[in-house]
């Protein structure tokens, strides 16, 4: 079992394709048909380190584990200082949050023009476009030929969309809060 755990950890942590993550059938090929048992044990070991294994199915409502993708993600939220240390700009994360909130609230699909309109309330047009372009490149957002934005593969893995919408609706502007504290 220890050997199988090592193989599973290496497969999940070392990106061997262009995208991170491993397909269920790949795990089955290396670990045998009871691969989910190995994944469960590994998941409990990883949770001690603040990580977890996330299973993302090909389509919503599908339950075919062989076709699903398995990823290792953080188990707990990052802090603002972690974010900055990891090389993210707060502006960029804010733009991503705004774009994904708009797309998500519209059922996972929104015209580029509408998303840009919301982003332009905070950023100049060129910056908003650049942030969206980067989000598309990273896989957070998909852009179709006719300029419709949809939820990308990375968002489906990394983001709890309901939590994001709830957090956006509940959030208080930081400047006002700071004024209150004063």
């Amino acid at each position, binding site marked *: 079992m220890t050997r199988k755990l090592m193989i599973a950890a290496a497969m999940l942590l070392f990106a061997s394709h262009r995208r991170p993550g491993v397909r269920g059938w790949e795990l089955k090929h290396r670990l045998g048909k009871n691969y989910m048992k190995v994944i469960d044990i590994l998941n409990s070991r990883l949770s001690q380190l603040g990580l977890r294994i996330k299973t993302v199915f090909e389509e919503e409502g599908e339950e075919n584990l062989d076709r699903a993708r398995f990823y290792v993600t953080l188990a707990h939220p990052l802090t603002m200082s972690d974010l900055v240390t990891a090389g993210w700009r707060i502006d960029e994360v804010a733009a991503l949050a705004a774009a994904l909130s708009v797309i998500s609230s519209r059922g996972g699909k929104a015209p580029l023009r509408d998303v840009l309109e919301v982003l332009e309330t905070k950023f100049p047009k060129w910056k908003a476009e650049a942030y969206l372009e980067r989000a598309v490149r990273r896989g957070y957002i998909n852009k179709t030929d006719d300029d*419709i934005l949809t939820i990308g593969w990375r968002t489906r893995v990394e983001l709890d969309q309901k939590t994001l919408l709830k957090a956006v609706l509940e959030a208080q502007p930081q400047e006002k809060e700071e004024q209150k504290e004063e």
Partner: protein
Amino acid sequence: MRRTLSREELERIIKICENVERMGLDPFTVNIRELLAKLRRMLEENPELEYYVVDAETLYRIASLIAFQHKWIEEKARSLFIDSQMVSTRVAALDKKALAQAFLKAWRPIVYLEQLTPQRLRQGLDHFLSLPPRPEGREYGWRLSEREYRLAEAAERLESEIMAEKVRRLHEELLEKAGEGGEVDYWEFVKGRDFEETFERAYITSFLITEGYAEVRRNPLKGEIKLIPNKGKAERKAPTSLVIPVEVRRDE
């Protein structure tokens, strides 16, 4: 005129249905009941086959829109009926830091490594060593192995020894034919039993001349070329080149 208008109207309805679905707009902004009533009226006014086709497509689009409405309600229920307009307004009201903090609450980034491990490096080396040699052989620029180098050297040495022996024999033959202080006609000397032999003799003779074992005397008026053998190797002080083409006759 009226028929054209009806057709345009139908195409407009198809376009509206397509746009709502494609752009993910609120499907309840379209009044389906009104569209169906309009469709029925137009169908009664134009009872023709060509019209039926467009009408059927319009009906199909309206049905798709109803399916989209169903999906829309499901999505809304799943997202606790959060209104998109409300979200957009909220996003516009929040500052960047608050948005980033909201994102962090829902974000669990993927953890993965892209670096090479010593184990993978070893696997790569094993794989490289197990690869069979390429079928077309070694390409130019590759380093020769010690064995290949020795074989190539031996082959070259053998070739030069054979050539030296051929030059020595032809020199002796030339001396014999020319006699003491004499000369031999070039064409008579190089001529062999067939073209291959003639060519080979001409080729070796060129070495005799270059190395100084024979001199060439050319008479351009008569078109004669004579070979005068030297007993030993003569030193060349001012060498010049002379081209003697070996012709092939059709009957040979």
